[in-house]
C-alpha cells in the first residue's frame, strides 16, 4: 500500500499576502508622495549624501538625524531581503571600500563588484542610490541622474 501524494496548499495566506499588501499600502500612502517630483528626490538624495551614516552629537546642537521623509524611506530600503542586497567590503583598510552583493544564505559567496570608493560614507551613499532606484522603479518612477 502506498500513500497518495501531497499537494501543498497554494493559498494567499501561504504566500503571506497581507504583509505584501499592507507594505505596498504604506509605501504608496506614506513614502511615495514625497518622492513624486524631481526636486523632492534631489533634496532627499542631498540629505543622505551629507550624512550617510549619522554623526556624533555636539553640545549645543541637536543630534544629526534624518528628516521624517528620509527616515521612513531609508527604513524601508534597509529591510529588503538579504539575497542580492548590497554590502560594503573593506578591501584596503581605511582606503578602499568595495561594493559587494550578498548571497542571501549562509555559506554562499559574497560577490565583489568593480565599484570601489575611498570612504565608507561614499560607499554607503552609492548603495542608497542603487536601492532608491530599484524601489522607485517598482512603482514606475525613474530615478533621474
Amino acid at each position: 500500500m502506498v500513500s497518495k501524494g501531497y499537494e501543498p496548499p497554494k493559498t494567499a495566506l501561504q504566500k503571506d499576502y497581507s504583509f505584501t499588501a499592507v507594505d505596498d499600502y504604506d509605501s504608496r500612502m506614506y513614502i511615495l508622495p514625497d518622492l513624486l517630483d524631481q526636486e523632492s528626490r534631489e533634496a532627499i538624495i542631498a540629505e543622505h549624501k551629507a550624512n550617510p551614516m549619522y554623526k556624533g552629537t555636539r553640545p549645543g546642537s541637536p543630534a544629526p538625524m534624518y528628516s521624517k521623509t528620509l527616515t521612513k524611506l531609508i527604513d524601508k530600503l534597509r529591510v529588503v531581503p538579504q539575497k542580492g542586497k548590497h554590502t560594503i567590503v573593506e578591501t584596503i583598510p581605511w582606503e578602499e571600500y568595495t561594493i559587494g552583493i550578498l548571497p542571501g544564505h549562509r555559506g554562499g559567496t559574497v560577490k565583489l563588484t568593480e565599484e570601489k570608493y575611498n570612504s565608507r560614507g561614499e560607499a554607503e551613499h552609492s548603495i542608497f542610490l542603487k536601492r532608491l532606484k530599484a524601489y522607485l522603479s517598482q512603482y514606475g518612477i525613474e530615478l533621474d541622474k
Partner: protein
Amino acid sequence: MSSSQDFMLRITGYSDRFSVRPGETINFHVHSENEESYQADIVRLIHGDTNPDGPGFKEELIHTSVSEMYPGKNQPIHAGSYILVPHCNLFNVSSFTISAYIYPTTPIVDVEGVNVGSQAILSKWDIKKETGYGIFINDEGQLCLRIGHGSGKVEEFSTGKPLFRKMWYKVGASFDANSGNIKVFQRPFVTNTNGGHGMSMLNPIEDTMGMIETSSYLGTPSQNDCPILIAASTYEKRSGRTIFGGHYKDLTEPLEIPIHAEKFNGKIERPKLSNRSLSDSEIELLLSCEGIENVPNELRSSILGAWDFTSNIVENAASQTIIDKSLSLSHGQCVNMPIRGVPGHNWSSKYMSFVHAPHEYGAIHFHDESVDDARWESSFSLKIPNGLKSGVYGARLRVNRIASPETEDYIPFFVRPPKDKPTARIALIMSTFAYMAYANDNLSVNSVIAQLLTGRVPLLQPEDLLLNKERGYGLGTYTTYRDGWGVNISSRLRPILNMRPKYIHILSPSLWQLNADLHLVDWLEEMDYDVDFHTEEDLQVEGVELLKQYDVVLTGHHPEYISEEMMDYYHDYQMQGGRWLYLAANGFYWITVPHPDNPNIIEVRKGDNGTRAWTINPGEYCNAFDGKHGGLWRVRGRAMCKLLGVSFSSFGLTYSSYYRRAPDSELPECSWIMEGIGLDEPIGDFGLIGDGAAGLELDRYDLELGTPHRAYLLAHSEGHNDMFVSVSEESTFHARGYFSAGTGETNPKTRADIVYYKTPKDGAVFSVGSMAWCGSLSHNHYENNVSKMMKNVIDGFLSSGPLP
C-alpha cells in the same frame, strides 16, 4: 557545501585555553585555508583600533621560541551535533526495526529557503561504500528507509508524504530478511500542547501521514563497521579526531569519532533498534516506553538499542552520555553538544522545567551547525616565560610572512601574574564569557534587521567572509541556527573571528568587545598604571579571593554575560571594601552557565524578556547546564542595578553623544572625581566609538531596580539620536509618546548616568553607564576630561584611608 570565496582570510586558529600564568603552556591550533606556510609570533596587544584618528595599532613583539615559519595545514571543522554509538557486531543485523519520535525543523528547506538535503535519523550507514541501513528524511522531506548492499546497490523506500516542520511524528521502518517485507511509516502525533509554536490543528492529517508496505529485492543490508549515529550518517568512519576529557567525563579512554554527514535538524526522542521485524503493536509498545520498561520478555531480547534521553537529566542536562536501556548497554556520546532536556512528544505545558518533569523532556534537539570543539591538531605551543608581563597577548599568524587583512590573524590569550603573587594593585577582568557569547555572529551577511539596528550598511572584512564560507564555525548566541532556533551554546575551542584586534564590529560604528577593551588597555599603559589581567573564567574558578588581592578592580566595556557565582563574587568584593570601576553598559545582564565539566563552553537561554537576538521556545527556559531558569538576571531578582547602581536603559548601535555634569558632582563626597573639569564643560564630546563617550548601550540609575539609596549622580548624557530605542524589558504597554516607545530625542530615559557610591569597609563603585566611554580615553593624546575623570577615580581609589 559552501561555494568558493576569493577575497577572504586564509588563516585562523584558536588556543586550548584563554589564560595562562608564567610556567604554564598554551597550545595553538591553526588552519591554513590553502595549506600555505605561515610565520607565527607572540605579541603583546596594546591598542587594536586602526582608526587613523586615534593612536593607531600598537603591539609589542615578544621574543619566544614560537617565532618561526610553520607548514600550513587545512583543518576543516566538522560541525553538526549527533550521538555516536560505537560499532558492535550486534548491530550488523539481518532483519531489523527502527522506531522513534521526531520533530523535524528543516524537513526540506531551512529558514532561508535553502534545501537541506537528506538527513539521517538513526543510521548504521557508510556513505562512501553505500552499505548498512538507516532511516532518513530524503530531499523531498519524506521519511524513508535505506538499505545498502554496496556501491550502486541501494534501495530506498519512502512514505511519499512530506514531513511538516515543527510537528511531532511517530516514525519507523522494518525489514524482514525471511520474507523481504518492508514497512515504513510516519504518523503525526499532534496534541494541544506538544508542538511548541507549530500547528496543533492538523487537518487533513493525510497531508503528512504516510505508510508503505512493500518488498526488498536485494535482501539483508551489507555489513559495515560504522558506528550507529543518531541525527547523522557516516561519511568517513575514522576522522583521526577523538573525544575525551572535559565534558566527556564518563569516557575512560579517547573515542574516535567519524566524519559525519546527512545531518539532521530537529528533535529526536526514544530511538530504538530491534533485530527483527516487529508488529505494529510491538512498535507502539516500544514508542510508549522511555527505555524497555513494561516490555514483555519475548520482546526484550530483540531490542539492540533503546536510548533513553531522560535517564540522566535530573539536576541538570549537561551529561554527554546517552544511556542505552537495552540489554546491549550500548551507551552513546553526544558530539558537538546537541541540546538536551528539551520538550518531548508528551509535553503537557504543565511543567516549565526538565528538573520538575524529566519524563516530559525526553527529546534532544540536534543542529547541523553546532560545534563544541573544533578538534584541530595542535600546531605549536608556548610555555609562558617567567617574568612575562601580565597583559593581553596574541599569537600572530602571517601567511608567508605577509601582513595583510587576508593573510594575517591573531589568536588572543591573556597572561596572568604568577599564582598568589599579584604584580599590581589594579586588576582588569577581561570579559571572556561575553567574548564567547558574541562569537561568530552572522548578522552582517544574514540578518535583515542589521541595518536598522546600526543605521548603516555592515562593513565586511576578510574574517567575515571566511566565517560566512564556514557557515559560522559553530556560530554564537547572537544568531540562530538555520532552523530558526537560537544558538544557546558557545565554545571557545574554535576560531572566534570577531574577537580579534583590528576587527571592526557590526554592532558599533567601530569596535566592540575585545578590540574595544584594548582602548582601556592602551590608556592604562599610557598612564603608567601597573595592572594584572585575569579572565572571567579565572574568577569563576577562584572566587572572591582573586579579587581581594587587588585594591581596584576594573571591568571591560561590556561584561554582559555573568554566571551566578560571579555575581556573588563581585558582590562579596564590594562588601569587603573592594573599589570597583564598571566602565561599561548593559553589564551583568544575561544568566550565563559554564558547562559543569568544561568551562570552555557556556550556555545562555535568551528568554521571552530582554533585548535579545532571539526568543526561547516554549518549555526551553531552563539551562541544560544547571537546571535553573535562564534568561535575564533581572527576571531572577538580580537586576544589575544592585551591583552597579545603574540599569540597562537604551541602545543605539550608531553614533554617540556626551555627558553633562549633575549637581551631586559638586558635593564634597564627589567633587574630587571632577577635579579639573568645569561645571559646564561637556564631558566626552569626542571618541573613537561614534565620536562620543556616551553611546552604543546606555545604563541609567533606577531606585526601583536596586540603585543604592545613597548613590550619587555625577553626570548624565543627552542628545542621543533617533536610532536609540528603549530596552524591551522596560516596556509593558508600548505606547507612542510614552517612554518605552520613545527614541533618543523623545525619551528622557535614553541616557547614560555616571553613578558613584560607597560600600562597606571603605569600598566604592564607580559606574559610567556607557559602552563608548573607553573609546574616548585617548582623545587629544590622552589629554581630555574623560581621561582626567578616570585618573581622578583610579588615583583616589588607590589612595589609602576612607574616601571623602
